[in-house]
């Protein structure tokens, strides 16, 4: 009972977080399912800073977790965070492992600084280590149709639990960058108030021996942040072009998606036709598990493609890897370009009346050219938006029209 009373907030947050991460929100408000991830300043604010874009007031949801630690230290970590709660419970399974944590260096503040500095440099590294994102990714992975690839965004969650069983508390105390960020803010606040309170140390504070000296912290912080920012700039130059190698969901920041994407799984879960899947290597090792479009229908009974009036995936990205689009903006935006292989096309090659691509194209981007009696399709590049309607409906075997990424 005592345990229950102590942990009532954590239990409530856990339940609420699971509901959000599973996407149980009203169907016409998909953006609500991104709420959990948006509370993390690493995702929402650092993401926006790196994207160099302001994409709506939901960014402000990241602010509370920047202010809270100034006054209450890591209250969020110990009393609210759903990932921390589960990691702590997992650690209880192995009480003998408690000592192991002392063999692991304090990485959390350094990781927080790396994310912050690289985000400031415009190409965030390690943003996917955010705990709310990892938590979200696990539950977002349970969607239909169930595929092995779809589980990719759940890997981090399992890794944290396994690591917590082997070495209890290691995630929250040593690695978590969101925890590290809050610790840095806590130390900053303490340093600012230090002058006033120096004479009378509070009883609740850490013993003086354990608390790092603020001056040492700031020097170390600069030594971490400056090289990290430089690394971010270089990474952006080297890896940035990889973002364009795969077919991306609408609104994607093609230059930065591999870095900005936190692999939270929101876009994949919210897609009504499960077109968005984790990339398994097309966009480079740095693009692993970022969202790519599988336009070819996996359901033989229903043509599935990126529907004209659907912008759900763009509304749930916490980091701005996918920018919010209005339906009108989506109509004007090409996510790819359809290409016809005339050797496979039943109209061009076999002289059959077909024109299914034209039939399905919502943008009237298929021009039909008369060849003898038969109308043969040609893609109008100025109108094609790469939605994949043609590809999902093409009756040729193998399929004659496919959508290619915009290079």
């Amino acid at each position, binding site marked *: 009972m005592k345990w229950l009373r102590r942990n009532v907030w954590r239990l409530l947050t856990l339940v609420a977080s699971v509901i959000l991460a599973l996407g149980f929100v009203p169907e016409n408000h998909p953006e609500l399912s991104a709420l959990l991830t948006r509370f993390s300043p690493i995702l929402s604010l650092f993401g926006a800073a790196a994207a160099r874009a302001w994409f709506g007031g939901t960014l402000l949801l990241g602010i509370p977790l920047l202010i809270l630690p100034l006054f209450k230290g890591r209250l969020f970590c110990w009393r609210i965070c759903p990932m921390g709660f589960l990691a702590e419970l997992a650690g209880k399974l192995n009480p003998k492992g408690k000592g192991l944590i002392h063999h692991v260096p304090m990485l959390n503040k350094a990781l927080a600084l790396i994310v912050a500095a690289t985000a400031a440099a415009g190409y965030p590294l390690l943003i996917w280590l955010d705990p709310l994102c990892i938590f979200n990714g696990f539950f977002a992975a349970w969607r239909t149709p169930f595929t092995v690839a779809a589980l990719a965004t759940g890997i981090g969650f399992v890794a944290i639990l396994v690591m917590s069983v082997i070495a209890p508390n290691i995630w929250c105390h040593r690695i978590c960058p969101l925890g590290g960020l809050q610790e840095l803010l806590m130390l900053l606040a303490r340093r600012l108030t230090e002058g006033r309170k120096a004479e009378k140390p509070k009883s609740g504070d850490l013993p003086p021996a354990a608390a790092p000296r603020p001056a040492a912290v700031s020097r170390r912080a600069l030594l971490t942040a400056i090289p990290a920012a430089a690394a971010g700039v270089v990474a952006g130059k080297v890896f940035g072009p990889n973002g364009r190698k795969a077919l991306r969901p609408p609104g994607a920041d093609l230059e930065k998606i591999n870095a900005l994407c936190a692999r939270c799984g929101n876009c994949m879960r919210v897609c009504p036709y499960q077109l968005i899947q984790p990339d398994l290597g097309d966009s480079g090792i740095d693009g692993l598990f970022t969202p790519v479009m599988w336009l070819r229908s996996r359901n033989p009974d229903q043509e599935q493609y990126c529907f004209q009036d659907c912008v759900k995936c763009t509304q749930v990205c916490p980091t701005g890897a996918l920018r919010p689009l209005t339906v009108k903006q989506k109509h004007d935006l090409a996510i790819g370009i359809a290409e016809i292989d005339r050797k496979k096309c039943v109209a061009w090659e076999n002289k059959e009346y077909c024109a299914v691509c034209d039939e399905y194209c919502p943008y009237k981007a298929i021009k039909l050219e008369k060849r003898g009696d038969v109308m043969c399709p040609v893609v109008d590049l100025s109108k094609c938006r790469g939605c994949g309607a043609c590809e999902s409906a093409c009756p040729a*075997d193998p399929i004659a029209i496919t959508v290619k990424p915009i290079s």
Partner: protein
Amino acid sequence: MNTTAQKAAAPAARIKRRTFLKAGTAAAVGSFYAAPSSASAESTAPVVIVVHGTDPKKMVEAGIAKMGGWAKLFKPGAKVAIKPNLAWKSTPEQGGNTHPDILRAFILAAEARKVKKITIPENTCHPEKETFPTSGALDAIKGTSAKLYRPKASEYKEVEVPKGKICQKAKVSRDLLEADCLINMPVAKHHGGATLSLSMKNWMGAIDNNTRRAWHRQGLHQCIADFSTFLKPTLVVIDATRIMLDHGPQGPGKLAHPHEIILSTDPVAADTYAASLFKKTPADVPHIRIADEMGVGCSDLAKIKVERVEA
């Protein structure tokens, strides 16, 4: 012309492999042909009734009265199946789908005549959760016992098409096969592949996706004609209140407003008349011509008796 001859010759070899027609299927085919009207007596000229007006409900009533009345169409206890065209997310004004008021008029009349059940299976192109509400069809069935649905794989039945030259097997919505009264209720519109989408083309929403895809690969017009030798509607009702002249079948396209509803028991005759609204002849729409050649109905507008009704 030449291509048709080749197509006709090639599948002849396949006929040898064709298995024998199941008795059940044959019986089902026979039962469809309950001519609802004395107007269309056998071996005389095919009759097409063209109702002109502005209120679809009144137009349907006037047309059916001319055909011989509802009582001959809907017998108490009968299984009624209606096949409208609800393929696309298109509003009634855009003309991509059968007008919901026409659909509702038939459903209400069937209910009033105590039929056993009314089913409306439609293999939509856009997802049904988009097309059924947008087309107005969900409103059309509101408060009635009619069942509007997109068939699942288990709700299709594979049938043989004995007279088919290319299409010899097809998976067809079970409810359409088992109906005592089968109404083919398309909207008349332009179509990129089939030239025009009329009543025979409308059966492409009665078959499953694999069959549909195969038709495009193997010869669309021949397959449409093949299938129309098999599935015979009790009545064809073509919605030509507004017709899409281009960018079909999905649209939105340029519209014309003939303000007509076309009724007939001869699908070829009905399609031939409807094609004339687009200034097209059976020579322009190969499946109409082929269906005539295969004996499905009459495509000679000069021989068709067009009876006009004002409503």
